[in-house]
């Protein structure tokens, strides 16, 4: 099938995204990697009037060490995460899990933030984030919030990102399927973790 007609905006800045979300509410969806959103459009499970493309927003990408924590930008592609030396050194669980995530083509386009935002209960990265005690940083026009992963995932494609954010109304997710709505909002990234500096402790991680 083909997607229904929709309008498209290439966002110029994070502020631009927030304005668009506020203006269009439920009728807008964020387009990041599109690896979940585009199939749902084509199947017409999701029929947004507006797609807000965040792919040119460099501020949302990147992977870095900041203040003893690993910051993974929402727009970091799975492939970038998989090849990141920072992730390999400090978050080996994620590095080890990445090859299990879909396949190469999906990992090249799909984003870390999109996976967290979608909250697919069968997805690898949400579980890894939970196992690592990640904190998600979300932003709306009302400001920035940090949500621990243990309180973030609420149910099938449902997260606690929504209710307090002005751009989110949980009223009627189309057929229970929520798309990458909050991928933008993981602005300062995920996986804020204590610095893994316990030299006397041998640590062990495993992922499937």
């Amino acid at each position, binding site marked *: 099938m083909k997607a229904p007609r929709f309008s498209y905006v290439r966002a110029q800045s994070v502020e631009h995204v927030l304005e668009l979300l506020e203006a269009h509410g439920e009728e807008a969806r964020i387009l990041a990697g599109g690896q979940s959103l585009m199939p749902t459009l084509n199947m017409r499970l999701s029929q947004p009037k507006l797609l807000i493309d965040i792919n040119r927003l460099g501020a949302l990408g990147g992977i870095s060490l900041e203040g003893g924590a690993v910051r993974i930008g929402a727009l970091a592609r799975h492939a970038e995460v998989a090849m990141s030396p920072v992730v390999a050194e400090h978050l080996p*669980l994620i590095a080890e*899990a990445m090859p299990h995530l879909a396949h190469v083509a999906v990992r090249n386009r799909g984003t870390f933030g999109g996976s967290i935002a979608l*909250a697919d*209960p*069968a*997805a*690898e990265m*949400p*579980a*890894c*984030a*939970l*196992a*690592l*005690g990640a904190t998600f940083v979300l932003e709306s026009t009302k400001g920035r919030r940090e949500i621990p992963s*243990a309180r973030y*995932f*609420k*149910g*099938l494609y*449902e997260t606690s990102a929504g209710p307090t954010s002005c751009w989110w109304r949980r009223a009627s997710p189309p057929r229970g399927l929520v798309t990458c709505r909050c991928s933008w909002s993981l602005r300062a990234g995920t996986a804020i973790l204590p610095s893994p500096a*316990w030299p*006397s*402790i*041998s*640590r*062990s*991680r*495993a*992922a*499937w």
Partner: protein
Amino acid sequence: MAFNLEVAGGVVKSGRLAYFASEDKPTLARKALAAVWGTPLDGRSGEAAAAALAEDLRPMSSPQASAKMRLHLQRVLTRRALEIAAKRVGAAT
């Protein structure tokens, strides 16, 4: 599942056992972790955690896999993961 364990002196000090693809969201298994918490990480850890897992998980049923099958598979993975973890810790010390 995705496990993150901290082990000191061969003993499980803390960690998180996260399971996915069985509940409606990624889920931490607290009882399974408690079953191995403070115990030596060895060949018996997997069975101890797997035995406690039924208290943590209430898997969904679907045409692809029944709840019973999902719980069974999560237990299998738990045993395998903790076997690997025990080997890695053994290799690191």
